[in-house]
């Protein structure tokens, strides 16, 4: 570029005036309020009290209203929630022997708290997870070597599907359990906790195979019964968490769908585990056959003819036909 006298002088003038302008702006900031705060100690109130209600901090589970429906576990894209649930043999109630959330792994996406039917799993406004031991960041909501009975929503239970944060905000409360949990004193000798061993835990990854050593207690009730009666019995068989895994909104609707032939896969009740799948299977087949099928009596089925009688796709729920479109209304 050609340098003329004018451009030479203009350059000097521009440089001087723009520096002047810039300095006046920086100087004005000397008299303006700084925008930072003195985290964590010199602030008017703790940070978690200043956070909005929707803040997605540590996960917290209210075990009193957890239905063990496993919806959160399935929704989690990184599998940081581990739930072991099984039906207790004596009381026939759903029991959780493990509910672990690995907060160190959690990416706080909030996908788990959305499908929760009762609003049991929620985010808290706590986030300070700095910890000397990563083991501490596995939140165990079921104490070691014990179990928690799942909440069974009573008929017509209108679950608060609202987010917990909104509820807490309305009540003027914040959750503190997560904070105490994260800040418990670190274990001195770093014991790596073994996974809890509980009888009857279902390995969900394995394919479902109909057990042959059980005696069905529900199958005799449906021999010769009406479809309505069958539906009632089937509903009793279900875990009763209304989790929606079966693509039906409630357990009742799934039971009716099975009874009236709208659904033909009896192995879709994930929360009920082996118990529910087995019972639903044998109940349905016994009703169809008009007599107890061999598995219901604790016998191995006869080799060839049983295949025709039983629903062919029953062996593997994962391969169930995907044609069903649930009525979401």
């Amino acid at each position, binding site marked *: 570029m050609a*340098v003329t006298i004018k451009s030479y002088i203009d*350059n*000097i003038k521009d440089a001087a005036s723009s*520096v*002047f*302008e*810039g*300095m*006046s*702006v*920086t*100087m*004005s*900031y*000397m*008299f*303006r*309020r*700084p*925008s*930072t*705060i*003195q985290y964590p100690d*010199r602030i008017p109130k703790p940070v978690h009290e200043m956070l909005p209600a929707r803040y997605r901090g540590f996960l917290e589970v209210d075990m009193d209203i957890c239905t063990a429906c496993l919806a959160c576990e399935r929704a989690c894209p990184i599998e940081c929630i581990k739930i072991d649930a099984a039906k207790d043999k004596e009381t026939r109630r759903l029991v959780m022997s493990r509910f672990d959330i690995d907060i160190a792994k959690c990416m706080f996406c909030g996908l788990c708290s959305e499908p929760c039917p009762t609003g049991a799993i929620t985010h808290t406004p706590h986030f300070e997870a700095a910890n000397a031991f990563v083991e501490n960041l596995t939140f165990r909501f079921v104490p070691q070597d014990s179990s928690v009975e799942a909440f069974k929503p009573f008929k017509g239970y209108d679950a608060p599907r609202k987010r917990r944060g909104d509820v807490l905000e309305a009540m003027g409360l914040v959750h503190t359990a997560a904070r105490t949990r994260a800040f418990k004193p670190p274990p001195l000798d770093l014991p790596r906790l073994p996974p809890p061993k509980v009888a009857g835990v279902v390995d969900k990854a394995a394919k479902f195979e109909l057990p042959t050593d059980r005696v069905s207690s529900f199958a005799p009730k449906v021999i010769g019964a009406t479809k309505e009666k069958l539906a009632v019995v089937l509903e009793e068989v279900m875990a009763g968490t209304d989790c929606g895994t079966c693509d039906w909104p409630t357990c009742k609707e799934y039971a009716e769908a099975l009874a009236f032939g709208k659904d033909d896969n009896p192995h879709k009740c994930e929360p009920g585990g082996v118990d529910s799948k087995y019972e639903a299977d044998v109940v349905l087949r016994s009703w169809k056959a008009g007599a107890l099928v061999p598995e219901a009596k604790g016998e191995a089925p006869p080799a060839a003819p049983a295949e025709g009688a039983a629903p062919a796709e029953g062996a593997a729920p994962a391969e169930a036909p995907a044609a069903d479109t649930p009525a979401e209304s």
Partner: protein
Amino acid sequence: MNSELPALQKVADAIIAAAFGVDPATWPLTELVYLAFMGAAAGAVFGFALNFAGFFIFFERRIAARMQSRIGPNRVGPQGLLQFMVDGLKCLFKEDLVPTEADQPLFRMAPYFVVLGMVLAFAAMPFSSALIATDINIGILFVLGVTSLVVIGVLMGGWGSNSKWALLGGMRSAAQVISYEIPAGLAAMTVIIISGSLSMQDLIAAQGGDGIVSWGIFHSPFTVAAFFVFFVAQLAEGNRTPFDLPEAESELVSGYNTEYSGMRFLMFFLGEFANVWILCAVSVALFLGGWQIPFGTLEDGMTPSPWLVGATGPLFAVMLAGASIPAAFIGVQIFRYRSRAHAAIDRAKIPGMAPGLTRMALHGGLDGAMLVHLLAAVGLVGAAAFQLSGGFAETFEGITGFAWAAVRAPIAINGLQFGVFVAKTLGLVFIVIQLRWTLPRIRVDQMMTLCWKYLVPISFACMLGVLVWELVVYAVPILGLIMRVAMFFVVVAVFAMYVKKIKASYDVDKDNYENFTGESAWHPPWKLV
């Protein structure tokens, strides 16, 4: 001019003559007093350089923070003032890493050159009419020369590191510092022409006479331009933004000191920050009247104007009262944390001593220190009050035979000069800091363009202009004075415009900010959140 004796020596002579009533030329102990004075001056200068570099880091960080809407260091010491000590300690305790492939001797030596250049420049730094380590007759030349020694260290570090980033940094530094010597020298020539001397003290003494309008910058329009050229060139020599190309964080990682860590890195850092003092102090000495007080006449330290000699009593009192502030502060701080410190001493288990005795000694020491500081504060305030009361000097002389007034006058005047000099320099330091956090960095070729196409011709024109001005305008002394006053008001007008602009910048956001956040936008610079 009249500098046949170094100023410091004259002060020593005056004190000997006045206080002990002997002729310094014949007194056998005179040499010893001189030696003590020189040692004290050297220690004071070096201590001043290091402490300034330390506090400068704090000020820079704090000012930068406020300019960026942050708070800045505020944890260690009052207002975070002692942060630099902690940082320095951290650096000292770090491992002294030398890269395997580095040129070991060069790499290890480089920081010392930087520090050497910095400290040598302080030798000719005129803090007051007497407080100068050595007033050599080529003072300004010496200062410009030894500050260039820094570039040798930077080059050594850049080459010795055997790192490409460091090499590029050293290369840029060499090109930059050598180029900017020329406009700096030419711009300095303007004031040298005016005063006719290269000695720092003479340069400053020539800027006295008529108060503030006598300062070099107001001499003529050319000296105003020369001041800006000199300041920009000095910024470039001090590697400050917009000329921080040698370290250019976003381009060269950290430039010449990329491979340095620990103590050697600290020395580079100290050198750089003390350099800021030097560049500002030299600018002040050449153009802003050095230690000349704005509203008074002080042509020479030993022959001050009569009103100033008369005012030394109150001045001394003010200085005493001012000195009581740090003493009182430390005493009060100890008092505030006394019980906590005692509890800490009680808890501590010190091996090898009986616990009761140790505890007693430490408790006593702590309380003693507190008492000494508080007493010192009270004593200084009392002395100030006493000083203000008439007849103190006579009473003192009558009792001890020590000519108090004769000693008091030089101390008070030099103290005042020192304060004025430091205040002026700090004002310029503030601008250097502000520029750093305002301006982007220029490119290498633009840096060269700016130097050779703009600064060199301008400074040369300024030099010629000052020559002509001296011959034409100052042929009529009253015309010269009128022009000085006019220049002064031009500068004042520019400053007023600046203040107005700051106010406008502040007002742009004030209402919206208060409407949005619900809190006041005003926050004074010294206040923590």
